[in-house]
């Protein structure tokens, strides 16, 4: 593959990505801050994010796929447990979850 090709790919990927942000700004003028439409859009955003996270963990792209499903799910469970038990300490939750993934990967 040529060097030029990756620049084309990255530029198009960046434009496509910014396109969503652009569209969000362009369409937002019609949404009232207290209306039902905003509630619905918020619901869509959180549901989509949750779907994305579930996909990243269950059907990972990239190097995370090298850890078995059991390691990924154990990491999530350990991270969530540490997060909730520590009165929502994010950094502790993330650290415990990541260590959990690595530990189960090594043990498996």
């Amino acid at each position: 593959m040529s060097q030029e090709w990756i620049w084309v790919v990255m530029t198009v990927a960046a434009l496509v990505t910014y396109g969503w942000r652009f569209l969000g700004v362009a369409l937002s003028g019609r949404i009232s801050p207290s209306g039902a439409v905003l509630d619905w859009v918020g619901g869509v955003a959180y549901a989509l994010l949750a779907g994305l996270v579930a996909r990243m963990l269950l059907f990972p792209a990239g190097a995370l796929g090298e850890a078995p499903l059991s390691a990924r799910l154990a990491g999530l469970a350990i991270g969530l447990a540490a997060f909730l038990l520590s009165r929502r300490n994010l950094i502790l939750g993330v650290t415990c979850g990541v260590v959990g993934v690595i530990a189960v990967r090594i043990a498996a």
Partner: protein
Amino acid sequence: MRGGAWDATGTPALVIAASFLGFGSMAKAADLSMGMALFSTATGWALPGQVVMLELYAIGASLLVISLAVALTNMRLLPMTLSLMPYLRTPGTPRWRYYAIAHLIAVTSWFHAMRKCPDLPPDERLPYLAGHGILLWTVTMAATGIGYALAGAVPPAVSLGLVAVNPIYFALLLANEYANPLRRNAVLIGAVLGPIFFLLDPDWSLLLTGVVGGSIAFLVGRARSGR
């Protein structure tokens, strides 16, 4: 602006740095130059889409396939921007400013802005997002470069840990929204629907998950409040 930057230091900066260290080393493995890796982070600035792009590029997928996959992976940015913008708009702000700062909307900055902005005076909200986003953007650039330089030099267990940071961090950010019934329901329904739709149709699953899951959560909320 300082408030946003201040809120981005500490945990968000650390976690985002770890995630982009992972991207830097992934870019090295895909035979990109460091300049290319930095370009992707600077202009894309949405990790899941960058990962999908690299994966598909590495297997020689066509430009059409790559752009569609990136578009569908990053679709979340539309409802995210749409739901945040009404808080950011103030009379008299030049429109280009919204379009410029919109580039700084990514999961971490959005979560913070969604929590903080409604309580801030209207004229401080856009600067809050700008401060938060610019600090994180700077951190991701540094982390991408460092991750690229260190690629191959860290043990496999560490590189696995780096790529595990992002999904676990996102999951905890979502879990943190349980006090808001609409958001909690949307997250729970989305987490269940996401994998089911993925098995039915990987390409369109995120769009379906967002629209179907978000609509169900919205309707449940309306029914509960008796409106």
